[in-house]
Every structure is written in structure tokens, then in C-alpha cells.
């Protein structure tokens, strides 16, 4: 019997490969997640998100007609997004640095390189549960703080010319 914790979670899998969708569903089932919806591309996923709440999204990167990057940007930035803060784990075989950076800049919460293992997927989910990240809103970006390691005692020198004023805010 599944242990409690994830049993009421609603998950959304966005993946164009049916075998991978099936495997991800099975792995989420192993955690006790039962309420899972599936979409084969970003456009379909947006429609599903409008119809039902999702607490966690697992998405592929390369899909047609709408890929995982565009989908993530919609979730984070659109006025019509049902939940701009929903955790998004991007799962992709495209592990080239520029693609990972594109995923980060689109606003994904975690990036998981294929081939997937249960251990790696669960580690990303644990990261979301155990160490939720602050969100950042600035010109051109809304999403999880892209700088994971921040030392509040750090007095400089600043790493970037545009290190700017940070204000904590209530959403």
C-alpha cells in the first residue's frame, strides 16, 4: 500500500512519447500519486491546466506544435495561467548547455536529463518538497530564483554589473 504524502497530489505529464508517459506515470504511481493527467504537447497541456488544477508538472522539451519551453513560459507569464507558481520539472534528452540554460530562463523549477531513473526523478521531486525556491519577478523573467546558492552575508564584490535591489514581496 502506498505511503501517505502524495496521495492527493494532482500531476500533469506533458510528453509526446507514449512509452515515456507510461513510465513517468508508473513512477509517480510508485510514490502514491494517482491523479495524473497526460498531454502530448504544450498546447494540449495548457487546455488541461485550464480544466483541472495541477500541483506538479513533468514536461518534455521537444514537442510539436508547442514545445516545453513555450509551455513553461505560458505557465509562468500568461495572464491566463491558472498557477504561475506550479513546480515544473523538465525532462529531456537535449542536455546541451544552451538548451539547459534556455529551460532555466523559461522558468522551469528542475531539469532532469534523460535517461531517467527513479532515483533521479525522486531526487528532483524531493528538492521541490524540501527546498522550495523563492520566485523572482524582474524585467524579462518570472520564475524560480535562478541563483540557487545565495549567501546573505556576502558583502561583495558583486558578480554582475546589474546586481540590483531585491525587495521581498507578498504575492
Amino acid at each position, binding site marked *: 500500500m502506498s505511503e*501517505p504524502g502524495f496521495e492527493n497530489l494532482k500531476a500533469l505529464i506533458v510528453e509526446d512519447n507514449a*512509452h515515456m508517459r*507510461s513510465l513517468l506515470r508508473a513512477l509517480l504511481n510508485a510514490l502514491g500519486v494517482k491523479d495524473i493527467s497526460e498531454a502530448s504537447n504544450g498546447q494540449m497541456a495548457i487546455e488541461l491546466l485550464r480544466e483541472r488544477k495541477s*500541483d506538479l508538472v513533468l514536461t518534455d522539451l521537444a514537442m510539436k506544435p508547442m514545445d516545453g519551453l513555450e509551455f513553461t513560459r505560458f505557465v509562468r507569464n500568461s495572464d491566463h495561467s491558472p498557477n504561475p507558481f506550479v513546480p515544473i520539472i523538465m525532462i529531456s534528452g537535449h542536455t546541451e548547455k544552451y538548451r539547459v540554460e534556455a529551460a532555466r530562463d523559461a522558468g522551469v523549477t528542475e531539469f532532469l536529463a534523460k535517461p531517467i531513473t527513479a532515483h533521479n526523478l525522486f531526487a528532483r521531486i524531493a528538492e521541490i518538497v524540501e527546498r*522550495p525556491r523563492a520566485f523572482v519577478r524582474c524585467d524579462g523573467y518570472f520564475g524560480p530564483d535562478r541563483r540557487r546558492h545565495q549567501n546573505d552575508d556576502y558583502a561583495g564584490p558583486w558578480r554582475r554589473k546589474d546586481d540590483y535591489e531585491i*525587495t521581498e514581496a507578498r504575492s
Partner: protein
Amino acid sequence: MTRKSSKPKVQLIPPSSYPQMLSKPRAARAMHTLRATDTAARAQAAMDEAMPAMRAAILQYVEEMERAGGDMTRLFEAAHEIRGFAETAAMVTTGRIAEVLCRYMDDITRAGKPLDATIVTLHVAAIARAARAEDDNVRTSEAVASELAALVAKRLSESE
């Protein structure tokens, strides 16, 4: 918290100020589930159960790749699917060769250079052989994968 004045403002929204995936009590229980040995066992069983279908799918993608001929977009898409889950289907060498091919095609295309048809053909043949080997002849396939990786590295450095 103010770090530096002037410059555009950034709004930092702490986790306590937006809805979390799980409430704190549920998060604690979820972490227990994530670390439990029976969760790992269930996950492994799920992976094992999925493996035959995934191996069959890999072989379909291999055929798709072979049928692609000179259609490099189609070939890349099939190779990309193979690299994506061949290792999950315990076809490690197949996945590794597909990874080298995808990186080669991606790097060359981004550099605006023409693909070397011989390199592509060699990889397609090696992927097909590794995928179809009943016992996934690791030693031979690993040697082929290493040779191909070295060849690709050489060609990429020449194209810079």
C-alpha cells in the same frame, strides 16, 4: 533586503508567500515516502515492467532511423528518442552511440557546417547493431562506441 541601490527592482517572492505543492505536514510524509525502501522497490518494479515495451520501441526507432535515409531531421528525431530512453531500457551502448550522433549533428548544424554522411551512416549502423544484439555484446559495442566518439571529436575539432 537591499543589496545595491539604483538599477531596476527585482521582486523576490519567498516560498512562504506562494502556494506550495504540499502543506508542511504532507511534505514531511512525502519525504518519508521518497526515502522509503518500499518506494524504491515499487519504482524498480515499474521500471522492470516497462522495459520490454521500451526495448520494442527502441527497435522501432532504429528502423525509423534506417528508413530516414538522407532526411536528417527525421533521422535526428529518431536518434534523439533512442538516446532519450535506451539506457532506461538497459540498452546502454545503444544509448551512448545515439548520444554521440545527436551531439555531432547538433554541433555541426549549429556551426552551419555540412554533416559528414559517412559519420552519420557509421553511427546509424552501430546503433542498429548494438540495439539488435541479443546479448548486448558490451565489450565489442563499447569499443565501437569509443572509436566513433573519438572520430566525432576529431571531426568536430577540425571543423572549428
